[in-house]
């Protein structure tokens, strides 16, 4: 008996329930109610965001597969493609950091190999609360350690290198950490598999781990705000088994080679429910399954539990009738269960039987693709107006070490050293580099990847913040010589039922859309994570962008200065920044300890010319080192370039009317610092692209000095700065 209470427990509104009754032409059964509730959850249906996601560019010359499949696919030439996507696992990671993060990795890896691509790289974008907060610091440190161990546990055992990412700390992530995992895989173009059922009478086969009671309603949990009771939801978090996933990977890729597989999809959010109805809907066919045949880990599971379980490491596939044995034998070889649980039918319905009786019968298309669509109110100003505060007297000398030791800027080695970033022997540039570079052995070319997102910028202006994220990710790729070709996004926001949050989401999507169109980096897939709120406190709007670029395989130009006596050219120029545009910088955060005004100003045209110029400079082999200016501005970039094995420093001498702290720490985009022994040619290239390229100094044997005209703003020993930078995170974690 479906009561109003039961409906609201399933997070369905009365009108959504009416729609269900409409679709079925009758009241749903309890199992059907559960099935609808997960498929129509925010997490699975994108009901609040879908309308706006349509604004994103998704097409391009190289796009083989855009949004709507398990991952986006890009043609990289030589008959090969890459499949990639980013996904969030925020809510589970708060409730159980280790398993939450581990299964986040597991989920995205399956999304990649279900398309026939072998995963070859993972990157993570992480957000946590402040580690030194007297009240929440201990919990935040525990969450950080747990998340990092979870990612390491899963990725290292599975055998995929974790090659980069970002990690930022803000009080707004205290009760709501963000764990966004990006994965990329490679396969031959002709070997791509789709999650589409076809061929009436073809067997539906279940492979991998058994189904247990773990993760029931995970998708719905991820579609609600956190309350005090959320901590009781631990049983909702799944447990990952990377060994099982590794076997599943090898077995699936091998089984795909037999030619006996018609379609395949992993069981992620909403488990068996999602995989059956989505495959059916895409193929415009029906699927009938008998739950008695589903391998089960627990006894006495109800149809409701079996359909909603989010047990990990499971896949559903449709095989060609009569060729089942070819599939079974591969899975037997790898010691995995593979069981025929149903059949493809003609009627377009998901029919679920238990002990021979029909317990659910729902049209696939309506269930999978016709979830309610909301145009939620967003007619408010998305960002607060925060006036410029009284600024302290500039002290560049002491501010630089403070910034270098701050959690956002300091070395993240403590994190990435726990990840195997070299397995598969393709890592040309790993963690700590400007962008990660992975060679593709099969094509002789390489792929570069970068994740970027800045919650502070987006809080001040979601539209400009999102544009800046796209620009920075593309700039990171350009700085290693890659040409950005496509992107994936993870949109982390608060409760969309609040107009100001919805306004943030809409503005961010529009900003991202504009910039992605401009840079010709279509979004081929991604993920939206809403309701990132705890006890009514929302996170900063945090759209995270993963951009993928193509390049030749060659020794990379890296960040550190290599030799003394080289000219330092600041490609893009000194930039400009007024007091309002300083408000989102790391200087504002760590030194002024406030957030105000607007993010740095971005000129897309200029940014692109800078990117063209740097690629040209790298092609001509003119740069010994290259590093883009981002968090902490020029001074931090100079310091980071000095931390290489050669410990070559720099003397910076600038003629500028900017205030000293603005000159040293402002974060205007479109700027790249390079060291070169041919500044003349570099400047000539810059002129050709109509960008500024002042020579701002020279590399020197020892130390760092920054002068404005004749005034020394600061001078430092490299070793002192380096030890502050290297050791800070470890100190914070303890």
């Amino acid at each position, binding site marked *: 008996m479906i009561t109003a209470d039961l409906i609201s427990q399933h997070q369905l509104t009365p009108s959504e329930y009416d729609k269900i009754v409409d679709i079925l032409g009758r009241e749903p059964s309890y199992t059907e109610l559960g099935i609808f509730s997960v498929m129509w959850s925010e997490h699975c249906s994108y009901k609040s965001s879908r309308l706006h996601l349509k604004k994103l560019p998704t097409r391009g010359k190289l796009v083989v597969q855009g949004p709507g499949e398990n991952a986006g696919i890009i043609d990289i030439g030589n008959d090969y493609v890459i499949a990639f996507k980013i996904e969030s696992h925020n809510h589970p990671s708060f409730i159980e950091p280790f398993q939450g993060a581990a299964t986040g990795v597991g989920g995205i890896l399956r999304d990649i190999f279900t398309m026939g691509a072998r995963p070859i790289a993972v990157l993570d974008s992480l957000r946590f609360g402040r580690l030194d907060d007297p009240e929440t610091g201990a919990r935040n440190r525990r969450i950080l350690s747990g998340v990092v161990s979870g990612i390491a546990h899963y990725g*290292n055992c599975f055998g995929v290198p974790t090659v980069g990412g970002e990690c930022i700390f803000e009080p707004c992530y205290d009760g709501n950490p963000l764990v966004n995992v990006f994965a990329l895989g490679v396969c031959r173009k002709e070997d791509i598999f789709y999650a589409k059922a076809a061929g009436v009478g073809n067997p539906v086969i279940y492979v991998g781990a058994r189904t247990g009671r773990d993760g029931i309603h995970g998708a719905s949990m991820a579609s609600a705000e956190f309350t005090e009771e959320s901590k009781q939801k631990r049983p909702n978090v799944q447990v990952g088994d990377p060994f099982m996933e590794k076997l599943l990977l090898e077995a699936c890729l091998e089984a795909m080679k037999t030619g006996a597989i018609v379609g395949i999809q992993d069981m992620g959010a909403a488990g068996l429910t999602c995989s059956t109805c989505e495959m059916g809907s895409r193929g415009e066919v029906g699927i009938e399954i008998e739950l008695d045949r589903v391998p089960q880990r627990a006894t006495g599971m109800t149809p409701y539990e079996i359909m909603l379980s989010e047990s990990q490491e499971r896949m559903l596939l449709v095989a060609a009738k009569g060729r089942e044995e070819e599939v079974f034998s591969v899975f037997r070889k790898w010691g995995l269960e593979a069981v025929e649980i149903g059949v493809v039918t003609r009627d377009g319905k998901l029919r679920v039987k238990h002990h021979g009786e029909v317990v659910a019968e729902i049209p696939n298309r309506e269930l999978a693709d016709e979830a309610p669509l909301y145009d939620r109110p967003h007619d408010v100003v998305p960002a607060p107006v925060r006036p410029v505060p009284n600024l302290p007297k500039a002290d560049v000398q002491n501010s630089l070490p403070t910034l270098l030791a701050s959690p956002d800027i300091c070395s993240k080695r403590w994190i990435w050293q726990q990840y195997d970033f070299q397995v598969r*022997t393709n890592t040309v540039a790993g963690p700590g580099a400007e962008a990660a570079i992975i060679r593709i052995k099969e094509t002789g070319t390489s792929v570069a990847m970068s994740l970027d997102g800045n919650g502070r910028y987006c809080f001040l202006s979601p539209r400009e913040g999102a544009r800046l994220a796209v620009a920075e990710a593309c700039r990171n790729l350009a700085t290693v010589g890659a040409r950005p070709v496509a992107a994936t996004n993870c949109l982390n926001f608060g409760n969309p039922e609040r107009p100001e949050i919805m306004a943030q989401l809409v503005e961010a999507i529009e900003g991202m859309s504009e910039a992605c169109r401009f840079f010709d980096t279509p979004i081929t897939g991604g993920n939206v994570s809403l309701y990132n709120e705890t006890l009514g406190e929302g996170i900063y709007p945090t759209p995270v962008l993963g951009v993928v670029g193509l390049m030749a395989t060659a020794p990379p130009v890296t960040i550190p200065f290599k030799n003394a006596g080289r000219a330092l050219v600041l490609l893009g120029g000194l930039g400009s920044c007024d007091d309002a545009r300083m408000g989102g910088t790391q200087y504002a955060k760590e030194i002024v300890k406030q957030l105000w005004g607007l993010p740095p100003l971005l000129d897309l045209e200029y940014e692109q010319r800078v990117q063209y110029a740097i690629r040209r400079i790298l092609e001509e082999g003119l740069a010994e080192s290259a590093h883009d200016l981002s968090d902490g501005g020029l001074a931090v970039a100079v310091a980071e370039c000095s931390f290489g094995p050669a410990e070559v420093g720099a003397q910076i001498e600038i003629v500028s009317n900017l205030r000293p702290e603005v000159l040293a720490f402002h974060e205007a985009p479109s700027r790249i610092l390079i060291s070169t022994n041919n500044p003349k040619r570099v400047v000539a290239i810059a002129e050709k692209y109509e960008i500024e390229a002042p020579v701002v100094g020279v590399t020197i044997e020892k130390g760092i000095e920054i002068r404005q005209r004749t005034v020394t703003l600061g001078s430092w020993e490299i070793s002192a700065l380096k030890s502050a930078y290297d050791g800070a995170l470890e100190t914070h974690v303890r």
Partner: protein
Amino acid sequence: MKFGVIVFPGSNCDHDAFYAVSASFGQKAEWIWHDSHSVGDVDAVILPGGFAYGDYLRCGAIAKFSPVMQAVKDYAADGGLVLGVCNGFQILVEAGLLPGALIRNRSLKFICRDVHLRVETTRSPFTGAAHRGEILRMPIAHGEGCYYASEQTLDELEAEDRVAFRYLDNPNGSLRNIAGILNAQRNVMGLMPHPERACDELMGSSDGLTIFESMLRTVQAHRAAFVPAGRR
């Protein structure tokens, strides 16, 4: 020369080892499946890194029972060259082909980074192409790589010149900085660092080739010295 690379369920450096000895080093390679009862006609066997059988128990504790390990023992007893890298080293130790144990890193964390190794002996089929005292740079990537053994065993290893490599910058707490060891017959070696990841300057180092080069020279010398009586 033909290398055999063993594939346990959960091996994940098997492709890397195969690629290193074939594409980078230019020799032949073939797979050996974990339930084989023979290693076939290979000139050397590599137990690659990874998490054999998931390693949810002690590392290598299950792998030692797999059928191929009996074949590896027979092959080693017959004088065949056996190289265990990382998880492969852990398995060789569990299987009793090498002494001691590999326990959790002192930091209790997984560590992935480059280390510097000193070649402690050139009197082995795996280090013959190096100079004694030569410094090699290779990556490590392990959570349980702290070499541990009784004082008596450690003394014995040193007295018999069976310490193949020591860390210059001990990353994991290994006793006496031991990174790799030989068996008494000197035809079985285990080491925690990954030579197969150091076979290409593009990956940061090609020092790992020294080990494969040593093995090749050994096999070639063996072939020159003996007329083969038939394939194994």
